[in-house]
């Protein structure tokens, strides 16, 4: 191989330890066994690989690209759950699910964790960029963005910050700014998300990002070539040295050198290239000019060309010098694996080529013809006429699959007897000031959540300037239909840390509750499974238990995972992140005008609690606040979840329910006061005596499958719930401007809403303002 084109032969005829060293040195992170099978392959070919070939294998076989640790478990327990509404799911960049007879919605969810830990602003911004492309490459118009994000504690003292780790406040500020600047500029509303602070995220923050799109069923396009002679047209941003080895970086633990060694793995985002790129791609697609479309994400050209050709049953020939570059002097292997942003690959027939190029020219978006399909199932790459890459696509895209060792650590969970606290008011105030409960308006109001003019329920909604947090957002995606997409996200890392199985099942319960709370019928799910190093059996044991919990909770619900992503190696020198299976849920509401929001509506209306309250305090906010360890983790029963939800939805359809909020962290007390925050009112709650629980335990329990509802017609409501055997309790009424909770006449909480609101509103501003 000549050095003329900057391509070099890599000698694999090496002893084992040298082979592993080579893998590290060239930055591809393959294991010894993987390096050996690469060596065997090239021995059969009778030659050594070129640098570009071995780099391509390093991309395709990374955990990030081929899911080698998680694939077998996911196939068995997550992706086999059937749901009739699915059009096609899991196989491509995003799931496609039926919306109505003519339209489908597209759902994608991903992580951008490691880039955000090293470069919070760019990492988070390009996370949005990537998820938008996943939706656009199905041919869909993005209509909503979702951002669940997780950080270390904001008040972490600087002397406790490990070397090479950035302060959580700095990362939080940068991530929110990145999401804001990219999402707002590209003009897709960020309507849902969550923010968590937990010491386990200090060394490795999590930045998950989801997107929902809408598409006419006729316009759905696949991420594959269609026929022989299809031309590869690369469109959008130019290719540079940013984002080299991103997938390998994502498939290893972070260490104190990550800042210096991996900075170049983070890409640079440009929303003002993306915005016209989306228009041009969708215009070309709706005019039926494209045979296939796929985004360039992890692994860059290296992954996209092989995967598109292979999925279509063909091979590909690429002329690499045709790729438009940001800078001179890039080596061919760098061009091949670069993860520069804002790029898409189109497969176009010769007859349509000029029309497609004209569309991109109109939008001032670069487009370059870089190759074509060939009948032989190989990928051939030429650089200025010289062949520098020749591999069969089966080998390249067929990464290894592992059955990792699983070690399940079972905690013995026992009920704990605690002392009755003296001042329950004070506990409620501490809860409301906890950054995990406190108002996230510092974040949410920086995101444009009303752009596109289709947001029917915003994430914060209430009385003009006073807001209640809403359990889901609602977007009305099609002009001529009143139907809406209900969008929500759920996961409680504290609960998952305590019990990965029931924690994961609870996340499903919560997403279901969230969707039902606004009047939506749950319809499909996406998961982003963020865990530690799968090569450590205990970590993989957490993964295994969470997957089993998701399977248990989901298999009877008739909704399924339409899209998903696994992010492993979320681990730094101070340990793994808590198990974090982020769940995004989509529901359908037939008429967005029938939405139910969480803020109280009218003085005098009755307040009910739906569901059963148990002594379930394992992983609860209450025990964290009073410093008690142990307790039983909340369980859930999928059948109860379905029954209670159906009854609640019928009462909403009848128009008897005027507001509704699900119970999660902080239980009943936090839910009721949040409903008051977005209104001019307070509430009087009067509880009976309970056999097995004190009043403080009752109001702070985190049992699943419960909602608080404000009702205007008690008789109709009670008879509907009785008929469906749904447990409920009338607990009080909307009244005054205070929160009063009494048991058997004696007050346990008595505080003005204004004072509680101030604590709740200021907690995050005090750090970030």
């Amino acid at each position, binding site marked *: 191989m000549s050095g003329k084109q900057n391509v070099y032969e890599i000698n694999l005829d090496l002893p084992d330890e040298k082979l592993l060293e080579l893998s590290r040195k060239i930055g591809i992170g393959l294991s010894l066994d993987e390096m050996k099978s690469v060596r065997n392959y090239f021995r059969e070919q009778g030659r050594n690989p070129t640098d570009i070939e071995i780099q391509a294998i390093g991309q395709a076989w990374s955990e990030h690209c081929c899911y080698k640790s998680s694939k077998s478990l996911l196939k068995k327990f997550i992706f086999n759950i059937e749901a009739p509404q699915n059009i096609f799911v899991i196989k491509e960049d995003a799931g496609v699910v039926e919306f109505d007879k003519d339209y489908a919605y597209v759902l994608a969810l991903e992580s951008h964790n490691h880039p955000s830990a090293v470069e919070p602003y760019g990492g988070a911004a390009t996370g949005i960029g990537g998820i938008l492309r996943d939706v656009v490459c199905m041919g869909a118009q993005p209509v909503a963005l979702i951002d669940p994000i997780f950080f270390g504690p904001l008040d972490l003292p600087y002397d406790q910050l490990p070397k090479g780790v950035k302060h959580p406040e700095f990362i939080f500020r940068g991530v929110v700014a990145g999401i804001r600047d990219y999402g707002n500029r590209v003009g897709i509303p960020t309507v849902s998300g969550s923010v968590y602070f937990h010491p386990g995220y200090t060394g490795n923050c999590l930045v998950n990002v989801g997107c929902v799109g809408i598409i006419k069923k006729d316009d759905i396009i696949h991420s594959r070539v269609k026929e022989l002679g299809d031309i590869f047209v690369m469109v959008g941003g130019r290719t540079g040295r940013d984002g080299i080895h991103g997938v390998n970086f994502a498939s290893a633990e972070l260490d104190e050198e990550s800042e210096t060694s991996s900075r170049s793995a983070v890409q640079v985002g440009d929303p003002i290239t993306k915005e016209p790129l989306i228009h041009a791609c969708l215009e070309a697609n709706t005019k039926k000019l494209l045979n296939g479309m796929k985004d360039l994400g992890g692994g860059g050209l290296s992954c996209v060309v092989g995967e598109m050709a292979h999925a279509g049953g063909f091979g590909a020939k690429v002329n690499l010098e045709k790729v438009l570059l940001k800078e001179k002097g890039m080596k061919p292997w760098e061009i091949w694996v670069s993860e520069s942003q804002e790029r898409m690959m189109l497969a176009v027939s010769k007859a349509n080529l000029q029309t497609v190029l004209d569309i991109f020219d109109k939008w001032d978006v670069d487009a370059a013809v870089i190759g074509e399909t060939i009948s032989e199932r190989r990928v051939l790459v030429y650089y200025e006429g010289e062949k520098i890459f020749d591999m069969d696509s089966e080998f390249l895209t067929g990464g290894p699959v592992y059955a990792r060792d699983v070690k399940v650590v079972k905690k013995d969970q026992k009920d704990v007897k605690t002392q009755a606290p003296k001042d329950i008011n004070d506990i409620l105030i501490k809860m409301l000031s906890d950054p995990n409960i406190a108002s996230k308006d510092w974040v949410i109001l920086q995101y444009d959540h*009303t752009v*596109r*003019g289709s947001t029917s329920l915003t994430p914060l909604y209430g009385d003009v300037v006073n807001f209640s947090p809403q359990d889901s957002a609602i977007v009305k995606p099609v002009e001529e239909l009143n139907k809406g997409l209900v969008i929500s996200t759920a996961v409680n890392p504290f609960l998952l840390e305590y019990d990965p199985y029931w924690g994961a099942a609870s996340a499903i319960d919560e997403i279901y509750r969230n969707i039902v709370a606004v009047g939506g019928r749950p319809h499909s799910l996406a998961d982003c499974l963020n865990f530690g190093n799968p090569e450590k059996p205990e970590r993989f044991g957490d993964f295994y238990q969470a997957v089993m919990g998701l399977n248990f909770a989901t298999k009877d619900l008739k909704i399924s995972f339409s899209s998903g992503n696994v992010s492993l190696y979320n681990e730094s020198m101070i340990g793994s992140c808590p198990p974090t299976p982020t769940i995004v849920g989509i529901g359908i509401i037939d008429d967005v005008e029938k939405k139910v929001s969480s803020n109280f509506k009218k003085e005098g209306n009755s307040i009910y609690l739906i569901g059963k309250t148990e002594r379930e305090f394992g992983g609860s906010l209450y025990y964290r606040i009073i410093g008690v360890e142990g307790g039983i983790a909340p369980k859930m029963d999928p059948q109860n979840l379905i029954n209670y939800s159906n009854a609640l939805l019928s009462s909403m359809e009848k128009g008897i329910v005027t507001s509704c909020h699900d119970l999660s962290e902080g239980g009943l007390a936090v839910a009721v006061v949040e409903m008051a925050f977005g209104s001019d009112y307070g509430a009087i709650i009067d509880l009976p005596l309970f056999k097995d629980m004190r009043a403080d335990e009752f109001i702070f329990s985190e049992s699943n499958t419960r909602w608080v509802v404000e009702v205007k017609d008690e008789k109709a409501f009670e008879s509907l719930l009785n008929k469906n055997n749904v447990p409920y309790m009338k607990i009080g009424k909307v009244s005054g401007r205070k929160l009063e909770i009494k048991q058997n006449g004696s007050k346990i909480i008595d505080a003005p809403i204004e004072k509680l609101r101030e604590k709740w509103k200021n907690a995050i501003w005090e750090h970030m303002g």
Partner: protein
Amino acid sequence: MPFGSIWGDSMDRSEIKVCVLRIEGTNNEDEMYYAFKRLGASPELVHLKDLKDIFDYNCLMIPGGFSAGDYVRAGAIFASRIRAKIANDLHRFIDEGWPVGGICNGFQVLVELGVLPGFKRMDYPDACLFLNNSARFECRPTLLKHENKGKCVFTRNIPKGEIMLVPSAHGEGKLLLPREKEQEYFDRLFENDQVVFRYVDKEGEYAGYPWNPNGSAHNIAGICNEAGNVFGMMPHPERAYFDKNKNGISGMNVFESVLKYIEEK
């Protein structure tokens, strides 16, 4: 184009052609398009590159977004590209009384073009929409009081004193006037009936943050030119289309007003 003189005749709604102008980064064009479409007019999404003759249209609208990324100053790049392409035509279009409207980034563009507040004909800005007092982009509902006595062609259909809930979403929405002429300019705005919308609280009072989300002097949210046919506002009536207040008024009335004006022109 079979588009003869429409002067003197009353126009049919469906004949009214609205140019929704865009460049890269303009991203509120779909909701603007539908705002007119729902009322029976004929809006068109037009890329500035493809704009042939502004006089093919009866109304020019500049939607919100982040045109060209807002990287120099909000709206500045879009404004200079409009000026380079159609400066003279635009002035003539305005002089002939055709309506020109800008929402959010579109308002910033009209100010950068110098056509708002438009005290005299000029090709450079005479005001600016400056960084919010909070120094950050904020997306929140705002209450607007309609204050125009009838000059603004975009709000003639809305009774004076009406209060409506309209979402705001901007980082640079504070109307600033040249310091040495500030008092004079504000006086002229009020005397000329150029003030259209002002931020208020639930009681209709001119209140501070967060009721006034950006710190704009006199709580000004939207203004028009002296003739009343060029209009800009920061909040988004096209996003509050169906959220009617108790008197049935919503963002829809802004678009209805201008269409009525064109019909009767």
